[in-house]
């Protein structure tokens, strides 16, 4: 096996090389990736200490119950701080991970099922959402991930399902409340079939009816009419569920309460349009901004025939011929780039505020995707002239914070050596100071591509 293949495994499928990685991976790059395709590789147990979304929501709601403005503000502040700390710990986890391919899959699915801080209510629980609904299923069944994501308080709030009330439900008949089709639409358009996946506005409405009642604990009325916060876990509220038969994509679903939408989700997960839509996104992510149709077909077939088995799909991705070829056509996202930098310097401490400021200025602050569609997955978005300059400025700033004993030539040998151009080698070996050399390495196209 060649060094180039090791470089490809570490960057196209990983998060960049740390010291010694090239040597280790060179032995069998494909096997190194295959060995990461196991359920436990995607779990980040060290992050579980940050608490469950259910507890966080309960805590916030309990504070709100008191109407004590000082307390509410205090709790809000506490969770904003916890959010920042967990986001930093999450990044650290990616930096130290020995299964970076699994981390890339986590990031891919987190982006596919975007929940964003742009809607403030869900802010504090977004990292927990990833831990609870994404990580356990990255190498499991797509259907299971879809169910977990859809039933999660973060998604239910982010896409307004918690305020969706069926017109003929017990509550709907009493009060003039209406249905919200946001979640149903986005599941069809963004999570499963894709916008051209063959559904109609009527399917959206029918699906939205089935989803009414999908909510979370929140408050509960007590006998003395005082409300109390219970929990932030999933709860089906039959009082707002639209009763009756629903018909979606030509199939009839009889009234079945919470199970109705579960059955629909399973059918969507196994649908051929979903296989095509997910395959296209995966190939765009791992192969090329302009995904080759032959590769899409291969992945689509595996996805469909395996009933959405993401283990098999991941295997198929690394078996594509296209992925072992040079030059690498994709550009790392700012987050991937920043993690690559931190892996390359092998745990040397970089001030966390410099990381956060960098990601914000490069337009990739975690859990802040601009819309439910997530971050775009193409270089045209990430490498506008302005965005490239921000990257350059950021790595230049980082480089001045690293120990002067760090040798840029050695870092080059440990990271991009298999593909480095003569010009880059010249510039780095001829750099006037170590920090200039290191900044040149991190800013280089070789380092920024994957």
């Amino acid at each position, binding site marked *: 096996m060649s060094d180039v293949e090791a470089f490809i495994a570490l960057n196209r499928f990983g998060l960049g090389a740390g010291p010694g990685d090239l040597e280790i991976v060179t032995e069998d790059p494909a096997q190194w990736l295959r060995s990461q395709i196991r359920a436990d590789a995607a779990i980040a147990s060290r992050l579980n200490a940050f608490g469950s979304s259910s507890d966080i929501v309960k805590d916030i709601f309990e504070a709100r119950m008191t109407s004590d403005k000082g307390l509410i503000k205090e709790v809000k502040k506490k969770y904003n701080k916890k959010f920042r700390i967990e986001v930093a710990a999450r990044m650290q986890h990616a930096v130290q991970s020995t299964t970076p391919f699994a981390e890339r899959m986590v990031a891919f699915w987190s982006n596919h099922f975007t929940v964003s801080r742009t809607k403030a209510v869900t802010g504090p629980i977004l990292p927990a959402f990833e831990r609870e609904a994404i990580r356990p299923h990255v190498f499991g069944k797509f259907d299971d991930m879809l169910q977990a994501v859809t039933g999660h308080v973060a998604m239910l709030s982010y896409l307004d399902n918690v305020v969706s009330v069926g017109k003929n439900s017990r509550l709907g008949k009493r009060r003039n409340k209406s249905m919200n089709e946001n979640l149903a639409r986005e599941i069809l358009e963004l999570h499963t079939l894709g916008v051209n996946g063959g559904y109609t506005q009527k399917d959206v409405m029918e699906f939205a009816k089935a989803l009414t009642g999908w909510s979370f604990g929140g408050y509960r009325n007590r006998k003395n009419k005082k409300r109390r916060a219970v929990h932030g876990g999933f709860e089906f509220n039959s009082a707002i569920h639209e009763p009756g038969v629903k018909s979606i994509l030509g199939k009839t679903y009889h009234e079945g309460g919470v199970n109705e939408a579960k059955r629909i989700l399973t059918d969507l997960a196994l649908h051929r349009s979903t296989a095509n839509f997910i395959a296209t996104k995966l190939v765009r992510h791992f192969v090329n901004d302009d995904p080759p149709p032959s590769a899409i077909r291969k992945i689509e077939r595996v996805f469909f025939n395996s009933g959405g088995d993401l283990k098999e799909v991941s295997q198929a991705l690394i078996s594509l011929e296209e992925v072992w070829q040079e030059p690498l056509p994709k550009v790392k996202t700012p987050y991937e780039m920043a993690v690559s930098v931190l892996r390359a310097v092998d745990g040397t401490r970089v001030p966390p505020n410099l990381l956060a400021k960098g990601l914000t200025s490069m337009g990739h602050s975690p859990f802040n995707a601009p819309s439910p569609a997530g971050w775009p997955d193409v270089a045209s978005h990430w490498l506008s002239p302005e965005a490239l300059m921000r990257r350059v400025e950021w790595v230049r700033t980082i480089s001045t914070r690293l120990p002067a004993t760090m040798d840029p030539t050695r870092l080059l040998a440990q990271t991009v050596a298999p593909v480095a151009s003569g010009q880059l080698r010249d510039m780095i070996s001829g750099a006037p100071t170590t920090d200039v050399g290191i900044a040149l390495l991190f*800013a280089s196209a070789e380092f920024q591509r994957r």
Partner: protein
Amino acid sequence: MINRRHFLYGSAMAGLATAMTGPRIAYATAPGENRFVMIILRGGMDGLHALPPYADPYYKKLRPRLAVKAPGFEGGVLNLDGSFGLHPAFEKLLPLYKSKELLFIPAASTRYRKRSHFDGQNILENGTGKPFGANDGWLNRALTHLNDGDQRLGLALGSNVPLILQGGAGVQSWGKSPFGEVDEDFLMRLTYAYEEDKLFSSAFSEARNAPKIPGMDEDAGKGKRKRNKENTNLFAKATAELLNRDDGPRIAVMETTGWDTHFGQAGRLNRLFKQLGSAILTLKHGLQDNWVNTQVLVVSEFGRTAAENGNGGTDHGVGGLAILAGGAIKGGQVVGDWPGLSPRSLYEGRDVFPTTDCESIFKSILSNGYNIGQAVVEDQIFPNSRKSIPLDGLFKGA
């Protein structure tokens, strides 16, 4: 070793020289003379505070503490037409109104009728009338019909391209770095290192060709508050600088935040109004001779409640205020139907009733000097918006 370094430095210089003297992008056609600058006020700007309908008997009733005093009193509004006045913090804009380069459209709103910032801003920018009705922005869709080849007529100010400018058409962007400028020596070396990668070398050379405006980069080290305060004006300066270029962009979008004034709004808006006013003046002065071909539109995702709340602020409400400025504008007027503030005329009993669609204003702007067919405007740029009819009489040419 020293000699080798000098040698390499020399070759870096050679690489740079190529980049600098390379041919500039030649456009098939000149980008035209019309300029459009859109200023998005994120958070929901309080139109009743910016343009108080001081003669409306309900104004003071709804806002016993917040209402701006009548003209003639100390700190009173600057009378415009006997009905409306301008908030005194906009004092510097008054001459523009008098010289007919500034007009106001009260009770303006997008087709959105609810009160979420997120959905409201999304609709303002995606142009479909629905939250997330499109993954691109209406101004970008317009640009796909204006850009000629690689031409990038759109300009985003700030580190991110806002949704309104996202989409298939290439746009330029300009932003001030929080990290300060990188030294020339380093950039030269990097130019050389990028030589073999087309994507990186072309993006980098474009980035390096971005204009430098003297006095703008020096203040990067100052405190956050100070920077934010100056950003609006800096963006206005940069916008004018770029829009003046012969082959530069022609349509720019800048955004400002802080308009969500639930608490103590009098002081905050006083400051924000001053900033907004000086940004508009900066555009006028910066654009010089091009000001006569310029339209500046100031909008927010929605307005605020007609009544003040218990915290010296106002809450989210539907009807807002749009402001148009520029030499191309038929200024000196307050445009549109004023619904009044009586309890019965309020929207859902609480907000200024929206009488002019922002989409109508957007369409008017596109129809004034941008050659885009009506079918494209109706079907692609603002789908399902035929009820939002372009407004007459906003422009000098019309």
